[in-house]
């Protein structure tokens, strides 16, 4: 699957990227909400793995922008955030197509891979 990874920290991004690529996914890493939208514009991802706490525009702002385009409405989003408490209500998550909310410090790479792998479309 094509994964769009939106992660502000370069080192963590490298680690997640390596794990996802190792599991057979191709990954595009973006550090900001703005560059993530540009990236999705050039190649629609199959899944977005998103940190909500980004510099400048937040992940929530990215989600609203992302969902405002018809072609991206069906793309599942996995939130992988350092924010412990849910920054999005259950209703918001449903509306914005957030399929999983993972708390980063407690989410192992295995958990992340399991969550992303479950989103594979049947062949």
């Amino acid at each position, binding site marked *: 699957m094509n994964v769009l990874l939106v992660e502000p*920290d370069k080192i*963590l991004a490298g680690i997640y990227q*390596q*794990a996802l690529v190792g599991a057979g996914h191709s990954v595009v*890493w973006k550090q900001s909400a703005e*560059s993530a939208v540009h990236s999705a514009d050039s190649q629609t991802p199959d899944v977005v793995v998103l940190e909500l706490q980004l*510099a400048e525009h937040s992940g929530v702002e990215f989600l609203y922008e992302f969902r405002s385009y018809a072609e991206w409405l069906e793309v599942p989003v996995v939130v992988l955030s350092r924010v412990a408490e849910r920054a999005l209500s259950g209703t918001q998550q449903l509306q914005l197509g957030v399929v999983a909310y993972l708390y*980063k410090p407690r989410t192992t*790479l295995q958990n992340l891979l399991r969550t992303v792998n479950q989103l594979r479309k049947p062949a």
Partner: protein
Amino acid sequence: MADLICERTDLSDANERLWLALADQLKLPLTQIARRAELEDSKESAAESLLNIQQTAGLALKLIDSYALSVWARQTKLAFEPVSLAAMLRDTADELEPLAKRYGCRLRLAVARKCEPVMAHSQALSAAFLSLGQVFIEAGSGEAPGQNRVITLGSYRSKDGITVGVFGGGDQLTKGIYQRARLLYGRARQPFTTLTAASATGVFVADSLLGAMSAPLYVASHQKSKGLAANFLISHQLRLV
């Protein structure tokens, strides 16, 4: 008496806010360590991976130490001594170099001549600039190698004495944004959203340490690069020694 109570409440509030910001900041290095240790098919060699873990843990421990020092510094009268800014900045750059390399940033030293010595608490000054440099490095990395910033550790003569700071924070770093961030730290997860996605605790730890030396941080420019700096008075007597 009322003033004393008020002062203690302020101090305790400041410590608590700094503590909250620190707790949030430490999630980053600890998550990096936990996830790196989990990575099986690492491109790095085992020795390289261990070195990275060691460096990450080392800097996290230094941040904790700097926080503890800042709490202590505000409760005691610091003993000042002559400090060479050039040596302090060089040591700081040496300590930060591995982190800068991992984040793909370039560190630069720009120390003006005849800028020393200044009277300061040596340990507090080093801890402040190490914490500050760490924030700028983490904030300064980019997606592509060409996007990475140059972080300058510099000192220069100014009308207020000797200015020493870390520069490379981008054009959006303004006096107003910094003032707002100072009001928000410990209360908001991202007090410094224009600079970094994290809690930027190193900035407030540095501000607290430098504040204890009556040299609080402020937004300054050096060689067309914006950053955070503090002013120190030059010791003319010491220059004669």
